[in-house]
């Protein structure tokens, strides 16, 4: 039966080409928009997670309270053991210690006197551990503008803007002036081995990246870290799962009376990201939902029109003795086939377009550069994201709406009387 109907559809172009085209375009657009919005959301969350929030992160309660001041005297101690325990207890995530600190960078002249000085926001990141994924998630190989990645504790990468401001280039030595975790004055020499550009708006304006071992030496933070950041192995942020994990961890490990007790925060708990997560999810759902409804109406209407266009044919088939049920079922089966073919082609097209935008992205650096400063970390390039749901989401409007439209139009079959049919055929 399906074979018979498919042949009919293919041979009669008016029954196949236009409906399949409409279904294909609608499905392709739905898939692309869904993939693009998911990509923007995840890209924004991942950038924020990489630079500061993690998908979840652990710190002391005291550090959380004063986090704006970067209070490393309230840092986590015994970090190696904590990272191991987190890895064992929550294997779906990988964990990485981080030291965030501020200070001044002092550039010496040939006599060792101060030549230039400027404020710096530095991150001590676990770049050098054998299993570390930090270079991968920071996309440092892609973001490196000049020089090479750090290989030793006393090597540093500077953002191109900071390096330009201080007149520094690769190979030069710079002295960090800051405070140890005991708030004592400290100075430490770093060798600049490269410069980078994050393309995340103003975030990297004063940024220096060093390996955490260097930060520990500079700040007297042996086996300590400001925070431990956790990322899902797939790098996909699942807000519900992160919030549930945070709740479970804090129930077991956190003591509200002890400022040194660890506390976990989800990405949504920091830097106004909660509002952003909710807003983006709602906006994305609304836009895709509205588009889905419009597509369904179009496809439904197409099914109706198709049914009405074949008014004469249906009458002829009934007059020839086909039962109303048979005609109705064959029309529905046809719409299923059309919907299915259109959805498959549309899904393939939509996925192709989404994949292209996932790889190439949409660059809007100029707009981001015009932003003065923002706490929300946003990428200068929007990338789409191919997710598993994109493989099936098109079937909802593609098949369902087409079939529903045909079903509605097909109701007319049952209203037609035999006597009236013959009259119609005579004229």
């Amino acid at each position: 039966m399906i074979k018979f109907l498919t042949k009919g559809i293919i041979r009669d172009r008016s029954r196949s080409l236009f409906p399949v085209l409409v279904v294909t375009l609608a499905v392709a657009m739905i898939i692309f928009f869904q993939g693009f919005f998911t990509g923007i959301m995840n890209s924004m969350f991942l950038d924020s997670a990489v630079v500061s929030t993690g998908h979840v992160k652990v710190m002391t309660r005291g550090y959380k309270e004063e986090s704006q001041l970067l209070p490393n005297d309230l840092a986590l101690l015994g970090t190696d053991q904590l990272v191991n325990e987190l890895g064992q207890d929550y294997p779906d995530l990988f964990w990485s210690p981080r030291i965030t600190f501020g200070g001044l960078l002092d550039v010496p002249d040939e006599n060792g006197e101060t030549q230039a000085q400027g404020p710096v926001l530095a991150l001590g990141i676990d770049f050098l551990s054998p299993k570390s994924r930090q270079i991968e998630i920071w996309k440092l190989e892609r973001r490196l503008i000049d020089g090479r990645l750090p290989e030793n504790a006393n090597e540093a990468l500077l953002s191109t803007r900071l390096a330009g401001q201080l007149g520094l280039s690769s190979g030069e030595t710079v002295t960090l002036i800051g405070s140890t975790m005991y708030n004592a004055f400290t100075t430490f020499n770093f060798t600049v081995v490269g410069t980078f550009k994050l393309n995340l708006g103003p975030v990297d304006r004063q940024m220096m990246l060093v390996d955490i071992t260097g930060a520990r030496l500079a700040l007297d933070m042996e086996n300590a870290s400001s925070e431990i950041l956790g990322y899902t192995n797939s790098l996909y942020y699942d807000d519900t799962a992160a919030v549930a994990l945070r709740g479970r961890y804090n129930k077991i490990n956190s003591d509200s009376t002890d400022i040194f007790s660890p506390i976990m925060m989800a990405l949504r708990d920091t830097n106004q990201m909660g509002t952003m997560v909710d807003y983006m999810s709602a906006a994305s759902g609304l836009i895709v939902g509205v588009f889905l409804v419009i597509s369904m109406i179009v496809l439904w209407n197409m099914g109706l029109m198709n049914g009405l266009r074949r008014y004469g044919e249906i009458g002829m088939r009934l007059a020839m003795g086909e039962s109303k049920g048979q005609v109705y079922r064959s029309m529905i089966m046809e719409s299923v086939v059309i919907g299915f073919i259109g959805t498959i082609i549309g899904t393939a097209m939509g996925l192709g377009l989404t994949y292209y935008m996932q790889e190439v992205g949409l660059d809007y650096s100029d707009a981001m550069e015009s932003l003065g400063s923002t706490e929300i970390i946003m990428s200068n390039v929007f990338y789409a994201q191919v997710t598993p749901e994109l493989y099936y989401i098109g079937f909802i409007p593609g098949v369902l709406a087409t079939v529903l439209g045909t079903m509605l139009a097909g109701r007319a079959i049952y209203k037609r009387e035999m006597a009236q049919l013959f009259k119609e055929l005579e004229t």
Partner: protein
Amino acid sequence: MIKIVIFLLSFSFLLGQSDEMTVQDIIKAMDDNLNAKSRVLTSKMIVHGRRASRTIESRNWVVGIDQAFTEYLSPPREAGTKMLKLYDKLWTYSPQTDRVIQISGHMLRQSVMGSDMSYNDMMEDRPLEELYEATLEGSVLIDGRDHWIMHLEAKVKGLSYSKRRAWIDKEYLLPMKEELYGKSGKLLKTSTMDGIKKVQGRWFPSRFIFKDELKRNSKGTEWRIDDIEFDAEIPKSRFSKAKLRK
């Protein structure tokens, strides 16, 4: 009988001297007690952090109010760090980086070795008499000892503390307790001193306690003077930048 009369006369003279001192006399006496032509001292700074306490040992050479040289002796991480103050300039040398760095601008507001004292506190060594207008607010007994309560209002612009309130022991002529206020009238720091001893004819405390009132949960910083020598001969070369690297 004569002895008794002499004793009573002396006693009444002593009492009369304290009560008849003007505010300027008191403030000058305090400055004389705390400052000297020169001094060499070894001290320990015990910084009570939120997590643990650290003891930092140092040796200081000071001439008047404009020249000071400090060398940190322990703990190992701080050992060899040196600081030189020459008039209104301050340099620090760290052996780890082999760099001499001038501390200026907002860095002067940073804490010295994690203590409750800032570099600005270190820099303001000028006599109180030159910096503040003082008025007496009354007297009070603290631990059985008579104290004046003195209010000091800055008469020089740009000081870290525009107001101070000091409780001055009438015998030692030392500010046993001080409250230091900012421009807005907010209490910024408190300091106390104890272990008063007579050193080379002057009363001098063997322990100071500084507390930064803006630091939450701060337990303050103790500064213990292990030994001090006033009016010692200090060679001029001590206060040179070249000495920092040696």
